[in-house]
């Protein structure tokens, strides 16, 4: 079923970039965290964002989700500039918030209803409900969030990101705390969306095995700048050559930080 009302949706969305970040410098107060970041994500692409703790991955995702205004530069989501029309840009976006931020005094069902109503959705997409079943969350939906385990909250956060059939799904460490079966269900669901060109995924993660297996492209963020990118061919090259992304990331980090010193 078609879930999201798409008033004002540009017709070129299906062909073009769902995310275009141009010279983004952003931070907290006057302290910049990101410096001149350029990143583009095409429709039907799974991009992984890698980097050590504090490198600016979450800050980058905050900017895309419209939670943090960049100091310089522009972000376009499906051709809509967030600086000019934040509300329209957010219609194409599904952001998986940190699980600890979901209010404890709401039930899972109420959280879904709030998200869906705010996105202007008539009904929640059947595939999302199927994912809830795969997560074995159906019996928990009417319980309060504060009774959920960390993994269950993480599942709810991931499902909230998928409400409203967004074109760009932005996830921050979405597989933390998930049991293997639920993690596999989420990865397969995201992969199916990407392969059907119904959405793109931007995932900030430290799980390099997920990147090697599922991502089409990976970008390494170091000290607020994109230091290195790996194409899909390079990522699949790791699988065939027996090398690992871990070694490649480590080498790229040392080379980049050595160059800065």
């Amino acid at each position: 079923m078609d879930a999201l009302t798409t008033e004002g949706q540009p017709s070129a969305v299906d062909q073009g970039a769902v995310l275009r970040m141009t010279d983004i410098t952003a931070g907290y107060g006057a302290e910049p965290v990101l410096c001149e970041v350029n990143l583009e994500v095409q429709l039907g692409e799974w991009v992984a964002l890698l980097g050590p703790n504090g490198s600016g991955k979450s800050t980058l995702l905050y900017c895309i989700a419209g939670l943090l205004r960049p100091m310089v530069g522009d972000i376009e989501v499906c051709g809509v500039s967030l600086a000019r029309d934040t509300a329209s840009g957010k219609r194409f976006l599904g952001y998986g918030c940190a699980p600890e931020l979901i209010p404890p005094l709401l039930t899972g069902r109420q959280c879904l209803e709030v998200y869906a109503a705010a996105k202007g959705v008539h009904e929640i997409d059947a595939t999302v409900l199927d994912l809830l079943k795969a997560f074995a969350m159906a019996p928990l939906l009417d319980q309060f969030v504060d009774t959920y385990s960390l993994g269950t909250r993480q599942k709810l956060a991931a499902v909230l990101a998928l409400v409203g059939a967004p074109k760009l799904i932005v996830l921050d460490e979405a597989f933390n705390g998930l049991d293997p079966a639920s993690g596999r269900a989420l990865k397969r669901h995201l992969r199916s969306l990407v392969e059907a060109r119904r959405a793109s995924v931007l995932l900030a993660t430290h799980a390099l095995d997920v990147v090697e297996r599922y991502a089409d492209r990976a970008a390494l963020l170091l000290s607020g700048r994109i230091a290195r990118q790996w194409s899909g061919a390079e990522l699949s090259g790791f699988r065939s050559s027996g090398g690992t992304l871990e070694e490649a990331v480590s080498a790229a980090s040392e080379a980049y930080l050595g160059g800065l010193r």
Partner: protein
Amino acid sequence: MLMISRTWPDRQPSLRVGWLRFSNATRRWPLMASSLALTLLAVGALVRFSPVGHAVVAAARHPIAVLTITGPFFAIAIYRRRRRLGRDRHRDWLGSLPSDLPLMIRALFGPLAGWGCAAFALLTASATAGLPFTRAASLVFAAAGGLSAAAVAVAFIMALQGRRELRVQRTAGSSKQAMPASQYAAARRPRASWATSASLVPLGYWPMARARFSERPKMRARTLVPLLLCLPLDAPAAVALAAAAVWLLTMHLLSIMVGLMRVAFAAASWLAPTGVGAARFAVAVSHRALASEIATCALLVLVAAAADHRAFHAALICGMLWTAAACLLSAAACLVALQSHSVARSLVHRWMR
């Protein structure tokens, strides 16, 4: 199947979440709803039967004074809420949604609810407790005027601040030197004696910090204002000051004890797996709090003696009893906390063996 409502209030997530939180809380803890109703009734009774009623009538004669007092009060409340919402925007789980109310409107929710409760209490008092309706209405309107003026002033200040912050950010963003070399987290000055010796003594700061948090100026004001309102209008300033001093010291004693109890359980759940001894644990957690209790009791006795030398003995006995009770309570709390958080030490476990 989840059916989604599409009415305007339902599409404002923060509004809807606020309502859901309230209704869920009353559903989950029915006592909360009845205590809310009881509070409103108590306010009505207070207006009817206590000198507060006289204060309200006196205030209603001077609506300009009420407006002048409520204006800054609401302005501070709205400004704090607006700053907090702006600061925590990136931690808002609803922040990525396309439709939501502006932060300024959301900052008004709390003060508006406070004004609504006050208006309800005043109008109820006018209907049931003999407060003239015109007096109650003039008070409500004066407070509404203060709230409106405060909202306009805060919106103006925030607009000015926003422009200034944007200018600062643009300058920082365009500077090539602005990017820090590595991590962006502010580096704290390292302590000279950082974790060099194993000691439980720092645990003693925890209850004091907890007590300081619970008696921060905002909370003190909330308890002190009703006390001062309960004093007769013709009470001398010395009496009011003495009452305020005694009240603050008493609240300090209570908040330290409450802080000590809460910290004892929190610290026990943290340290129980380490096998720390009960006596060491109790001394470490409570020594600073108990020292502060004794000092505050001594101060109270001195204040009582200064006010009336005949009250010295009674105050001394009360102070000693309170100190003894505090020592016993803190020891019991630490022991119970450790017992309840340690399977190996629990009485049930010993009995089973």
